[in-house]
């Protein structure tokens, strides 16, 4: 709400000298991105619509054969669906775990708020590789895995838990890897809610849980939507976590892409997989942005009608 209520920034208006200067200041960054991100990506994604020749070249004729194979042949389709499933389940579990932490950051006494913030952010600057290694040690299928060792210690370890090298190990580690990225936007949303609104609800007799469901939760939807879209798109695009924890059963699109390019040398198929991964990421991001703006517009219209 605060974001929309701010006055428009008082930019210094732009005489011609400033126009030249701003062009000079923006151009290097934009040109760099165009040369090394936009152009190469267009080439790579374009591969998906072409044919892989025996010579190793990817060239016309244009066809949708790669996409047909990727989406409809059983082996590839399984990976596509598994990727979406892992991303979906991961975002859901991450959301459930992130909300209480975000509330602790937003509402707890300063000491606990800071402590939670440090513990949530710290893993963010530890390599995903190291965190996946930690989960490898934790989830090991035999009795040497920490989880099974603990279960045995308390007398529950008759049959060891075997989730390593399945998609469930990937989900557990992905939740861990992306949790901070869900907590931060939700906490931002929560701190922006005017406490007076909540107090008003409570003074008018709403029970705490009711005030939460009817006031806090709806007002945190922008952060929630942003968090879900970030976690969903990053999980769907992940490589190292499924590579280390998923084995062959838990392989996702990123692993399929790596395999197509480095072992099968099929750059056309690689282009198609890359295209699908980019499409998933962009859809998740633009879908979330659209949803937040749509809700805000709807709310503005609703409040204007009173």
């Amino acid at each position, binding site marked *: 709400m605060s974001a929309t209520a701010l006055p428009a920034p008082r930019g210094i208006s732009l005489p011609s000298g400033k126009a030249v200067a701003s062009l000079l200041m923006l151009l290097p960054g934009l040109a760099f991105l165009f040369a090394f991100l936009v152009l190469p990506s267009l080439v790579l994604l374009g591969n998906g619509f072409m044919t892989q020749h025996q010579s190793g070249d990817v060239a016309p004729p244009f066809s949708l054969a790669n996409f047909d194979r990727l989406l409809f042949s059983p082996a590839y389709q399984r990976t596509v669906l598994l990727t979406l499933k892992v991303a979906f389940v991961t975002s859901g579990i991450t959301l459930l775990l992130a909300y209480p932490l975000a509330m602790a950051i937003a509402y707890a006494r300063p000491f606990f708020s800071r402590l939670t913030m440090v513990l949530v952010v710290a893993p963010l600057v530890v390599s995903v590789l190291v965190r996946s290694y930690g989960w490898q040690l934790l989830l090991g299928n035999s009795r040497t895995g920490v989880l099974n*060792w603990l279960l045995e210690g308390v007398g529950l370890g008759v049959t060891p838990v075997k989730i390593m090298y399945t998609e469930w190990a990937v989900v557990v580690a992905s939740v861990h890897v992306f949790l901070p990225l869900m907590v931060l936007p939700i906490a931002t949303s929560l701190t922006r809610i005017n406490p007076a609104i909540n107090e008003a609800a409570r003074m008018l007799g709403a029970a705490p849980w009711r005030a939460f469901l009817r006031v806090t939760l709806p007002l945190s939807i922008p952060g929630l939507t942003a968090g879900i879209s970030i976690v969903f798109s990053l999980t769907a695009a992940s490589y190292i976590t499924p590579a280390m924890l998923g084995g062959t059963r838990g392989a996702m699109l990123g692993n399929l892409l790596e395999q197509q390019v480095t072992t099968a040398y099929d750059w056309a198929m690689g282009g198609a997989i890359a295209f699908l991964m980019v499409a998933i990421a962009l859809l998740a991001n633009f879908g979330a942005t659209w949803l937040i703006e749509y809700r805000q517009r709807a709310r503005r219209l609703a409040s204007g009608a009173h």
Partner: protein
Amino acid sequence: MRGRLSASGAVLVYGAGALILLFIMAPLLVVVSLSFSAAPFAVFPPRGFTLEWFGRVIADEEFQHAFIVSVSLAVAATAASFALGMPAAYALNRWKVPGAQVMEAILLSPQIFPILITGLALLQFMARAGLRDAEMNLFIGHVLITLPYLVRTITASLKLVDRSLEEAALTLGASPWRVFWLVTVPQIIPGIAAGCLFSFMISFDDFPISLWLADAQTVPLPIFLHSSMSRIFDPSIAAMSTLMILTGVLAVIGLEKLVGLRRAMGI
């Protein structure tokens, strides 16, 4: 901050929070505890206590080389991203540039683009152009992933600057350049330092870009660690991981000291 959680709500939030924080710390604690284990295999529970694995890792020339590659790559990428991102963020924030929103979206776009594909696209592009210098390719790839973080933190810092101070200085006759150096810069320095530190860690920890662009001579630390995992099974892997965790912890302490974590993360 006061009175926004009821008593039962507080119990619920703190209780659930404590359990989830345990989940967050568990894999890191397991790795750290095994790095001190005297057993010849990285198997839980750790046995005894030794610093031998750290000694071995630090004495290993390949590790030293990978560490130097990663640190120089992270410093170079952060410096280049700053050089590209600082003027761009300033122009977008302070002057009414036509199409500013679109340009800002483009500058931030590497963040929503799958990093694995950023790296692969760059690999294919450079290979076709005949540019096979791994150091250069890694540098360009790491600039791509650090640039959006710097643009974002610099933008956030610029928005927090007290504009009335700048206007007062301008009114009193200071040149725009002097205003920038004497009024704006001192206010944005902590935010920029935090952004640079975060960008350093993004590059230092990166796996999916380096996966494609590294070669046998230029091996960043995460790539070296990953390849070591498939051939070494003693706790030296845990020791290397612990050193990477330590770097991250130092970075978090740095962020907290520089601007406070909440501001650094934009809350």
